[in-house]
């Protein structure tokens, strides 16, 4: 098959796709439409980049690239080619125009083929540019002041080799094979221009970005993302998520800043912690996710409530320290993922949370919140921040005559 089949009906899967194909085949060169509902594909073109407020998918492959060419034209050509491939792959098509099996036998295929027969699976590809890119290409004037490498936070154990990067790409999909396929093909196409600096697989979204989604759980077993910004809260998104005209260089208007943190969780010691202590650390109950002292997940936490002469929600509880009321109203849109990178040779799961947050300005978003958490959060005993990244994600592409990074480079 030259192109991957797109079908919309979730759950119908490959079987139906095959049936559609057989039908088309029996009709010869007729013009019988094959199953063509595109509900399974998320539009690539639009005012915003997909993959930010679009409902969080279940799987992640995030990659950070270093640009290894000094030739600006080569970089621009690659970004054009990437954009075309991204438009195709998010629509459920092969990365290249000939596809995994459509080319001539003497050439390597222009698609790697592991997604043959798989639907678009809600794939989104979201690009961002890191601070180091602006230095490399003399783009100082275009660099937003909000785009600074994140500061060192107390307790950080950042490994530079899995941090930073000139270009970050977030691939999210309902099927990990589809997300990995997308990143693999972009890396393949970028050889000679970019080099993979680090990448991270994630499973199990740890927050919901839409009110239509239930709140998922992180590897500590707690609901995560209850107080997240959600797609439906458009006024709040305008205030806290999307970069506005006048915030910085115009190429970022309508975009957002992406912060990534790889947070290793020492799950073995957490699992030896009593339920009561776990709940005190988080500040919510493990079952319903309600704030301590309340009964519903979405109840506003009451930070003044006392149990005897101690606060019901402890002063060093995660939910208190992270709450907007404690951080000058700072709100983030989180769309992190659980990860398990095998085990660590000491018999412990190499597991944790790949934290992803989008915001209008990290200086008023992630940085103050993380500063408060890094200093006082009682959860710190069970976690280590080991990787850090920041990327400026421009607005979306509205038509096929545009490409990723065009306003920056041309």
């Amino acid at each position, binding site marked *: 098959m*030259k192109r991957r089949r797109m079908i919309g009906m979730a759950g119908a899967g490959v079987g139906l796709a095959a049936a559609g194909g057989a039908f088309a085949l029996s009709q010869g060169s007729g013009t019988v439409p094959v199953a063509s509902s595109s509900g399974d594909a998320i539009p690539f073109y639009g005012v915003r980049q997909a993959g930010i407020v679009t409902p969080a998918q279940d799987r992640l492959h995030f990659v950070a690239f270093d640009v290894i060419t000094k030739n600006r034209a080569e970089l621009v050509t690659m970004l054009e080619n990437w954009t075309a491939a991204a438009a195709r792959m998010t629509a459920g098509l092969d990365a290249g125009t000939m596809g995994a099996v459509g080319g001539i*036998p003497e*050439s390597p295929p*222009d698609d790697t083929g592991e997604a043959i027969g798989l639907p678009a699976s809600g794939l989104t590809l979201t690009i961002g540019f890191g601070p180091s890119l602006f230095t490399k290409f003399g783009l100082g004037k275009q660099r937003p002041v909000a785009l600074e490498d994140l500061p060192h936070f107390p307790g950080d154990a950042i490994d530079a080799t899995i941090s930073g990067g000139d270009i970050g790409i977030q691939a999210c999909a309902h099927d990990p094979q589809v997300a990995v396929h997308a990143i693999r093909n972009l890396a393949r196409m970028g050889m*000679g221009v970019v080099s993979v600096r680090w990448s991270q697989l994630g499973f199990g979204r740890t927050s919901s970005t839409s009110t239509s989604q239930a709140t998922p759980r992180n590897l500590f077993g707690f609901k995560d993302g209850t107080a997240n910004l959600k797609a439906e809260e458009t006024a709040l998104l305008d205030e806290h998520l999307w970069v506005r005209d006048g915030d910085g260089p115009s190429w970022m208007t309508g975009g957002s800043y992406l912060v990534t943190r790889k947070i290793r969780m020492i799950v073995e010691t957490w699992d030896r912690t009593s339920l009561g202590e776990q709940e005190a650390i988080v500040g919510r109950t493990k079952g319903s996710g309600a704030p301590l002292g309340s009964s519903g997940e979405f109840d506003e936490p009451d930070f003044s409530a006392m149990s005897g002469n101690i606060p019901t929600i402890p002063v060093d509880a995660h939910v208190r320290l992270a709450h907007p009321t404690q951080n000058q109203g700072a709100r983030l849109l989180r769309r992190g993922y659980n990860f398990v990178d095998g085990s660590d040779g000491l018999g412990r799961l190499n597991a944790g949370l790949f934290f992803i947050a989008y915001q209008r300005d990290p200086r008023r978003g992630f940085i103050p919140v993380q500063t408060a958490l890094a200093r006082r959060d009682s959860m710190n005993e069970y976690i280590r921040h080991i990787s850090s990244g920041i990327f400026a994600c421009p607005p979306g592409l509205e038509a*096929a*005559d545009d490409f990723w990074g065009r306003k920056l480079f041309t």
Partner: protein
Amino acid sequence: MRRITAASAASLLLLAGCGSSGDDSSAAAGSDDKIAVAASDTACEVAKSESGAGTVTFAISNKGDKVTEFYVYAAGDRVMGEVENIAPGLSRDLHVELTAGTYETACKPGMIGKGIRNGFTVTGSAAALTEDAKLAQATTDYQRYVKSQTGALIDKTTEFVAAVKAGDAAKAKALFPVSRTYWERIEPVAEIFGDLDPAIDGREDGLEPGQDFTGYHRLEKDLWQTEDISKSGPIADKLLVDVQKIVDQANSASLSPLQLANGAKELLDEVASGKITGEEDRYSHTDLWDFAANVEGSQAAIAALRPALEEKDPALVKTLDERFAAVEAALETHRSGDGWKLHDQLSQADLKVLSDNINALAEPISTVAGLVAGK
């Protein structure tokens, strides 16, 4: 763009059914059916993705809001035909003469950028590769290179074997990477004669039960690991016999242009998978000698193909030149005396730079065979 057109889906399935694009008789050779192209601001739906050789007509209708263009490209973005300035709501035809090969079609909404691309395959009879004078010349030129390298290979291996048998470990150690240089430059040629390659260049962990560990790497182990060559004589003798057999066969065989192209790529794959990792010369750590030789061998094959490539895709030739130069520059920083630093003297960061440069070169080289085959 976001929907497969039924006609292309059907023809694709037919293709898959025959198992090969070459013998697809359903392609509309000689038919003057127009191929409909529905263009919009974000999509370019071409009703068919293949055709028989001859004049192909595309009927483009612009259903978008922006003025658009339509192009047919051959490899290297060589324009085979174009229609410009198709205003919204208008339809235009493009007639283009195409021989067998792979092409790309493109709609360009807003008339800028690379456009929305689709693959397009043209099938039909075409001349044999060796009928192309430049390709025939390439194989002759490369044959001459093989002959010069095999001559040096025999000479240096004879010296190396003599040193081993004389018990002169220091001399043998110095000659080991030198004799391998000539081997590594033409390794894909040697690999054509499959049964000898493992005997000459096999590694211990590649052996099947019952196979003997012989060849360069066995002597390498005796020299550097066991540090005892007192019993290595028979192994050394066998190496020379096996190398002589390869040399005889390599000089009598004639290679096809495709074998040259694939050989150029395989040499770089050797580097990427075996030399960067230090896996190949694990006892001596002389991997950078092999690395340099593989790159030189790849460059020799490309040099032979160069006149043919210049004609087909000059931009690719320029890219290859630049990237060969980049690999050489990266490697040059690790020179040591007449040779190279040992693999275990390089840092992870050094190796990443070499790896990036090899991948940067191998990617465009992987397209050479298709270009050669594409007539």
